[in-house]
Each structure stands twice: as C-alpha cells, then as structure tokens.
C-alpha cells in the first residue's frame, strides 16, 4: 500500500507567484513515475511537497492511504536522493546509510544486515568504511541510493540524481537505478529535466510545463501521440520539426501546404480527421526520423521533399542533416551511407503517416 495521490495541489509563494497550479496525479503502488519538464516548470517543487520539504498552499497529498499535508518529512515514510548527494561528510559510508535507522532506534544487528543488503545490491560493499570525500561521483550517488534503500520506505523520491555526473556515468547509473527499482520494487517518483532519462526509466512520464501537467502516459505513448505542441517538442531528441502550414484541397485530395513551394499529401487514414481544419493556419509536426533519405517507392502518405543541406552531423549509426524550409530550421535523420554535402540539394522522403497537426492557438495536437 504505497500509492501517492496528488490532488489539486497548488504551491504559491508570497500569495501570488504560483509555482504549481493545481495538479492532479495518481501514482500506483510499485510504479516508477518520472516528472519531466524545463527548469521552473514546478517538477522539483512538486517532489519537495511530496517529501514534506515544502508546504502545500492548497490541495491534498496522500501517501499510502493517509493524507500527509501536515505530516513532517520524517513521519511520511519516504526516502529521498538529492542531486548533490547530500551525504554527511563526517560519517563513513556505513554510518551515512545507517543514520536514519539509528535515529529510528532500529536494533544494531538489523541495521548491519540492512546496510549490507543495500551495499550488495549497489555493489558498494568495499566502500563501507570510507568517507564520502574519498568516493567518486558515481560511488557517492550509489551511497545516496543506499541510504534510501536501507530505510525500506513506502516511496523513493529522486531529485535530478544524475545531473552532477558526466555523460558516460549518467548512462551507467541510469541503468543501475532501473535495476534497483526492479529489485526492490518500491514506488518511485523521479524528477529530471532530461527527457532521455524520463523515457528510459519511467513506467509513466509526467510532462510538466509552467506549473501544470501537460500530459501523463507511458513513454512510447507520449512519444508517438503527444497531446500538445509542448510535449511533442519536449519529448524526443533531436526535437520534432514544426512548420507553419495550411490544410488545403489539392489535386489528390487533402494536402498540407508549407510555404509556397512545398505541398504534401495528407495520408488517407487521416483525411477525415483533418478535414475540419481545412483552410486554416496550422502547424505541421514531423519528427526527424520521419524525414529520411529518398527512396523511390510510392508508399501512401510519403512525399518527396528537396532542400539544400545546411549542416551535416554524422553520428555513427545515423546522420543528422539540418536545412531550412521557408527560413525555419528543420532536421532530418538519414542513413549514414547517404552522401550529404552542405550546400548541395538532398532529396528526402517525408513520411506523413507519422505527422502531427497542431492548432497554433491552443497548442493542441489534433
């Protein structure tokens, strides 16, 4: 029984600045939920309200069936891992992990057993006698996780735990966090600004923006069916291309016209859905992987596009080609074997079967 419910939660400072604007979120037992969004979107504030480190201005937070609005952090049965590890510098690794248990008057043999177990899970058995100063960044982060694990809490809270690590270690620790969750299976709320972390770790991703939840869903769902332009642009790297367009009737039925030169056919499956937006200014969203090197096949919904390459970025398993359409930067993901030269026109296929049509006024994906 360790669900977390966030109900109409508001956080405002000095009565007027609203950091969190009445959000609702139900987190199931054993679930791994990632709150993701740009800086200042309210994700960390939300996590800190769950932890009890920030007061809740309005609304309710429930943990494991109890309302915890006025419960101090130590009685909420949660454990938190911080971005800068927050290890006690004067204590050994063992004492760091045992501190919370000692305060709770857990018997010594049990403390030792729990710390050893956590150390085994995290592979830090050798480090128990060391001080945090003598550890590398990755080891410190493991100890911080160990400190959370030994407590056997109802909920783990992670506040950007990998931001202080270098890129390689970050990927490695990401896998470890996932492994730890699979082992101990505790309900987890994880905050990050890195959408790759969100996608790889989460059972469900919560995308936040300006104090509200934009969309909640499994990573694949968010990737393939974003609800808003913000989510479409935030999830995925490189980001989705956005081009102002107009839905019009053309020679072969409904088309999307981008600028004067580019007219793309709407795939048959979407014609009905998009018909009501005819003759309106809309935004076309297309991910880079749906703009690839041209093949001469006449799959429905795939159109040929030509543009002079501006910048070519070979990345090994793929190559990114940047170019401009009506002055707007667009990125395509092509096969590394494709011969792309900056300045030369490159024929590309635009797969409109994966297109998104966005209402500019509301930012809603239709």
């Amino acid at each position, binding site marked *: 029984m360790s669900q977390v419910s966030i109900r109409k939660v508001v956080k405002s400072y000095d009565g007027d600045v609203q950091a969190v604007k009445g959000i609702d979120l139900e987190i199931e037992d054993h679930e791994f939920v990632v709150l993701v969004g740009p800086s200042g979107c309210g994700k960390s504030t939300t996590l800190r309200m769950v*932890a*009890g*480190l920030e007061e809740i201005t309005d609304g309710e937070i429930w943990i494991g069936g109890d309302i915890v609005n006025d419960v*101090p*952090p*130590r009685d909420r049965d*949660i*454990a*938190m891992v*911080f*971005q*800068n*590890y*927050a*290890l*006690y*510098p*004067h204590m050994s690794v063992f004492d760091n992990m045992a*501190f*919370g248990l000692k*305060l*709770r008057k857990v018997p010594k043999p049990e403390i030792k057993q729990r710390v050893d177990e956590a150390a085994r899970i995290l592979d830090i058995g050798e480090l128990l006698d060391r001080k945090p100063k003598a550890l590398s960044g990755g080891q410190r982060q493991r100890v911080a996780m160990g*400190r959370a694990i030994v*407590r056997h809490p109802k909920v783990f809270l992670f506040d950007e735990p990998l931001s202080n690590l270098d890129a390689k270690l970050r990927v490695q620790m990401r896998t470890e966090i996932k492994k730890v969750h699979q082992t101990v299976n505790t309900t987890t709320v994880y905050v990050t600004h890195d959408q790759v972390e969100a996608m790889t770790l989460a059972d469900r991703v919560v995308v936040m923006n300006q104090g509200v939840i934009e969309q909640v869903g499994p990573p694949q769902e968010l990737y393939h069916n974003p609800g808003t332009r913000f989510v479409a642009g935030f999830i995925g790297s490189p980001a989705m291309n956005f081009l102002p367009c107009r839905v019009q009737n053309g020679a072969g039925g409904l088309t999307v016209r981008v600028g004067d030169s580019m007219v793309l056919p709407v795939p048959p499956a979407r014609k009905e859905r998009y018909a009501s937006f005819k003759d309106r200014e809309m935004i076309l969203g297309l991910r880079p992987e749906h703009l690839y090197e041209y093949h001469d096949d006449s799959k429905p919904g795939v159109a040929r596009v030509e543009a002079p390459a501006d910048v070519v970025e070979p990345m090994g398993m793929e190559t990114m080609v940047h170019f401009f359409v009506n002055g707007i930067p667009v990125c395509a993901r092509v096969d590394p074997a494709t011969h792309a030269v900056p300045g030369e026109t490159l024929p590309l296929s635009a797969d409109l079967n994966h297109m998104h049509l966005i209402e500019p006024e509301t930012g809603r994906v239709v």
Partner: protein
Amino acid sequence: MSSATTTANAVAATRRRHTRSLASQRRWALYGSYAALVVFVIMFLIPPFYTVMTSLKTSAEISAQSGNPWFAHNPTLSNFIELIEMPDFQYFFMNSVMITVVTVVVSMVISVMAAFSLARMGFWGSSTLATGVFLTYLVPASLLFIPLFQILGFLGLINNVWCLALVYPTLAVPFCTWIMIGYFSSIPKELDEAALIDGAGYVQMLLKIFIPVAMPGIIAATIFAFTVSWGAFLYPMAYLYSMDQMVLTVGIISDLVRGDVFQWGKIMAASVLAAAPPVIIYAFLMDYYIAGLTSGATKG
C-alpha cells in the same frame, strides 16, 4: 627540411626564453616575499624573544650596564620559581583559567545555537537579527565599560571575578555567532533536508550533523572567545581591585610594579607563563583556525 629545422629551433628558443623569464620573475617574487617576511618576523619575534631572555636573568644581570643585553649569560629559573610560589600569582592564574573556561563554554553554547537558528531556521526577521548581532560587535568595548560598570554595581558584582564571566560573553558571542552563521550557511541545504527525511529533529540535526561538519568554524570561534577572555585588560582593570579577585593581565602589572619599582625579571616570567596557554592552543589548532576563518569568509 632545413627550413623546418630552423622553425623548430626558433620555437624552442622562444619557449626557453619564456621559461627563463617566468622562472626569473618567480625568483624575484620569492626574494621580495622573503625580504618582507624577514622584516615581519624580526618585528614580531624580537619582543617575545627579549621577554624570554629577560625572564631568565637575575635582577642584578638585568640592571647591569655591561654585557650583551640580548642574552642571559647566567640563565636561571628563579624568577619562575618565585612567581609560582607567590599566592597572588596563583590566584591570578586560577582566576584567568576559570573565567576563560566559563566564557568559552557559555559563548560557544549560545553562539552555536544562535547561529544555527539564524542561519537555518528561517523565522520571521532572522536575517535582520543576524545583521543586528554583527552590529553589536561593532560597538567598541571601551565605550561599554561605563554602562556595564553601572549594571555590575547594581548586581553587586564589582570586585568579584565572576563579573567577568558575565561580561566577556557579551563581547565574544556576537563575533562567534557571526563566524558560525557564515560557517553554517556554507553547509548545503540538502544536508538538513536529508537529515529531516532520515528522521532527525532540529536538535539532532545540530548535534549530529551541523556541529561535526562545522568543527573548523567552531574551533575558530572557540579560539576567538578564548583570546577575548584571556587577553582582556580594560574590564578587569575597571571592575576588580582585590588581589584574590584579579586575573593575569592586570594582576601582573599591579602586583609586580610597585610605585616606580619594576620587578622586570618576574614581570617577564609572568608574561611568558601567561602567554603559554594561547601559544600552545594556537599551535595545536592553527590549521583548523585558518580553515575556519577562510571558509567563513568565502562562503558566508
């Protein structure tokens, strides 16, 4: 080929020239530093050296006009022995130790708790109060002794050595609190939050996290409180007159200078003994002291 060699040689020559000029600049900087340090060492170490030398001389040797005054030709510990056997000196020493221990303990307990609450508990008006604490330190001690005299008189504590245990903390607490606020503020906020989540209350947080982590700052503040109490001259001079209530600083000169008779040998021996405790404490805690002051300065 030959042009490439010439270029390589030119590059190497330039590099050598640069290296040489850097090394010589460094050498001159070092000469300068040593010259300045030698001047300061001489200025600061001659008085204590002369004090020690004089304390080892007999009265006859001190007043003799002949011989090199910078060395004790017949060194003797008689000044020290006579001094230690003097009941007055024993009072002075015991009183100084007693008052200093009480001052240090009281000041540190108050300032650590005050600094923790001002730096961390973030209550209404805490930052104004913190500035206020520092402002009180700016009031010169020489301005305070008259009003304090009235207060002590009202309390009936004039000519009672314990009045100093009341007065000294008022001088030590503001500065110690200020040092500790700086030090506590440099401790990352996440550390308290981690402790809160681990289940610590404020008292446990202070005792188990803040005090151990801020130990260098606490030692710096302790040394300051110690120095305030051990070296104070004005207050004991103003408030105490009986020999059995006197402390070292004032006692030495009032007991060993009678009219125009200066017992130089004993005065110097007493100075050496009085200076010994701070020197010993500084020697042991110097590294901590410097770490405490600098860290408070940059991060506070």
